[in-house]
């Protein structure tokens, strides 16, 4: 009924006479500026800033990346030559790409697992009605608002062979490794620095979700004899699964765009152990001046991000139980 009423109302308004006498009339005597047209114009004007912004800063660069990937652009010589699919052939033959993609996958998996697990644990702990939870919430969230580069530079000093972390380990009688120079420890260090930087954001999202879980469900489960772990597994996780999906998408996409941490901490080394795809792209385009190939790597990154997002979105039907 409500829909029918709305339709009638809109139709009535569309045929209504113009509100002011200044509106132009088309040839048949019908006024051009009908209420419907005015409404449409207002609507378009409202979306125009977003539309223009998206076109200018998202769609146009996306198109240009595709265009550049079909060219070889020698910045110094000022030449821009069409090379067709040559850059894509180079992509398939690139001996470094396998190692780069493996490093990228390792970083993403490590980041997602550490970040989401820690964020969830912190959120559950800080969701208790205990003294001091506000302090700890602020403590864990504060790195999110700190400058990324400043945060990373501080950690660079802490992770040096003679830095603060090894100093602390030394007090405990442990001879710490050279964190940023070992092939295994360098990647682990980058992951942990990134997790500690952003875990607060996911923690807050989880906290909000946890506070939306009805308390009576836990009470009923307790009466039925469910323990803490069962309540968490059977009630908490299903009810906050939409938030888990959201945070996992944000974290996966974010993990593929990590750059400053790598640039400051390891510059992709030792060897190529921390050269993730976006850093490799930066090296190719801006350090080696292979702008065409850099654009091709951008296209690859776009495809990977899009595919992962689609896969996660599709998977929500299987594991998101409580989608609004």
């Amino acid at each position, binding site marked *: 009924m409500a829909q029918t009423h709305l339709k009638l109302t809109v139709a009535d308004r569309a045929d209504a006479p113009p509100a002011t006498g200044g509106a132009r009339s088309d040839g048949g005597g019908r006024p051009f500026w009908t209420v419907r047209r005015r409404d449409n114009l207002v609507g*378009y004007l409202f979306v125009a800033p977003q539309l223009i912004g998206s076109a*200018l800063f998202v769609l146009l660069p996306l198109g240009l990346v595709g265009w550049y990937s079909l060219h070889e652009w*020698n910045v110094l010589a000022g030449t*821009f030559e069409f090379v067709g699919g040559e850059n894509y052939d180079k992509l398939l033959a690139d001996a470094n790409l396998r190692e780069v993609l493996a490093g990228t996958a390792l970083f993403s998996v490590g980041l997602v697992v550490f970040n989401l697990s820690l964020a969830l644990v912190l959120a559950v702990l800080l969701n208790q009605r205990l003294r001091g939870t506000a302090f700890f919430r602020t403590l864990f969230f504060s790195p999110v608002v700190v400058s990324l580069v400043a945060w990373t530079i501080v950690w660079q000093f802490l992770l040096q062979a003679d*830095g603060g972390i090894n100093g602390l380990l030394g007090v405990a009688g442990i001879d710490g490794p050279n964190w940023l120079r070992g092939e295994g420890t360098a990647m682990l260090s980058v992951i942990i620095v990134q997790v500690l930087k952003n875990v607060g954001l996911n923690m807050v999202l989880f906290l909000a979700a946890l506070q939306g879980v009805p308390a009576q469900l836990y009470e009923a489960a307790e009466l039925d004899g469910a323990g803490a772990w069962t309540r968490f597994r059977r009630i908490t996780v299903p009810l906050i699964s939409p938030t888990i999906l959201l945070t996992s998408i944000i974290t996966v996409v974010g993990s593929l765009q990590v750059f400053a941490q790598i640039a400051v901490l390891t510059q992709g080394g030792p060897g190529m152990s921390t*050269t993730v795809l976006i850093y490799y792209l930066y090296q190719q385009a801006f350090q080696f001046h292979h702008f065409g190939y850099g654009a091709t790597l951008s296209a690859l990154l776009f495809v990977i991000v899009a595919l992962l997002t689609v896969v996660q979105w599709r998977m929500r039907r299987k594991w998101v139980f409580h989608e609004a």
Partner: protein
Amino acid sequence: MKPFGKLAALALATLLTATACGGANEAAPAKQGPQPLRMTIWTSNEAHLKLFNEIAAEYRKTHPNVGEITFDPIPFENYTTTLTTQIAGGNPPDLAWILESSAPDFVSSGALLPLDDTLRKAQGYEFDDLTPSATKLWQAEGKLYAYPFSTSPFGVFVNTDLLKKAGQKTPDEMIKDGRWTWEEVAAQNAAVAAKTGKAGMVVRDFDYKNWDNLASVWSGWGARAWSEDGRTCGFDSPEMVEAMTFLHKSIFTDKAFPGPGTTPDFFAGDSAMTITQISRASLLTDATFGWDLVPLPAGPKGEYSVIGQAGLGVFAKSPNAAVAADFLAFFTDPANSAKLAAYFPPPRASQLTTETLAKSNPLLKPDQLEKVVIDGIRKGVVKPNHTGQAELSQTVRAALDPLWQPGADAKAVLAGVCAKIQPMLGA
């Protein structure tokens, strides 16, 4: 077309028009009135900038057609990357400093304006005073594409207080005894590290990444990163293996060099010695410790010297290229070259004298200037440089990383470096 389609089409057309107008590398025509000039540099040292601005102000007095001359500092670490990004973004400077490592790329690309005619025609320029060894790197097919405004030898700064504290002889004494060799110097640094807890020898700016600075060590063994023609890898040569084996032992066994992941600063008094260019002497103005500057220690192949260079070029596509070249001629004429010599060793034979350099380097003794600067420039080899240096450099860094671990097999690692870069050298 529906209104949405019209709006989208309009937005797209506007964007495409804007993009087309922005045309990536098309130089805008010169504007009317005084032409401003912009020069990218990697120093932000106040004294350097003051001198540059004074020279620019003097030039503008006699050239009303030139507007403001801006010196645009870019951090050294990302200098070439930032410069090429500016060029790619359609915002190239009119003039730029260029590092020796990227000299082959800039010189061979056609990006720079040949300077010979402008410099030769400039009144009182004395073009033939420029030493051939200084201009060699900046020439292609007989044309000079950049002025070698700084030719700076590497030397060893020594904290004499730390040496005395560790019971070691001063460099002067070592040189007099004929013991200023890598073997002896490594032993001295190992002794300082063991007895004082401070670091020994620091190869400044190396940081286990910028390997080209190690040329200041391996050249003593006669090793080269690649052959003179740039087509054959030199990392697996017996000389390089011997030099790197010595370096590895000095780092991980003798502890004469601080290991990876540590950042001792000589100029803060954290280490006994450092290898760097003489322009760093300015950091010792307020030094609280005794110091000396001496030549690089002799290697198995005898005495040697390594120089770093920087050029100053004009971008051919700059709408103000002719004016910029004229300013460059003024900026580097004999009078201004003598002023610049306070910080940047000049390429002019007539100015490479102890007397000239002493006037502008009050911190250095005549003996230091003679042995380190003048002799260094005379017999020095330039740090490694090659076309596509950035990619080569990154590939070498990644392949060399396994060497910076205790127990590494230097010969195998260096063979791995050549396996990676030989295809890039094009032989």
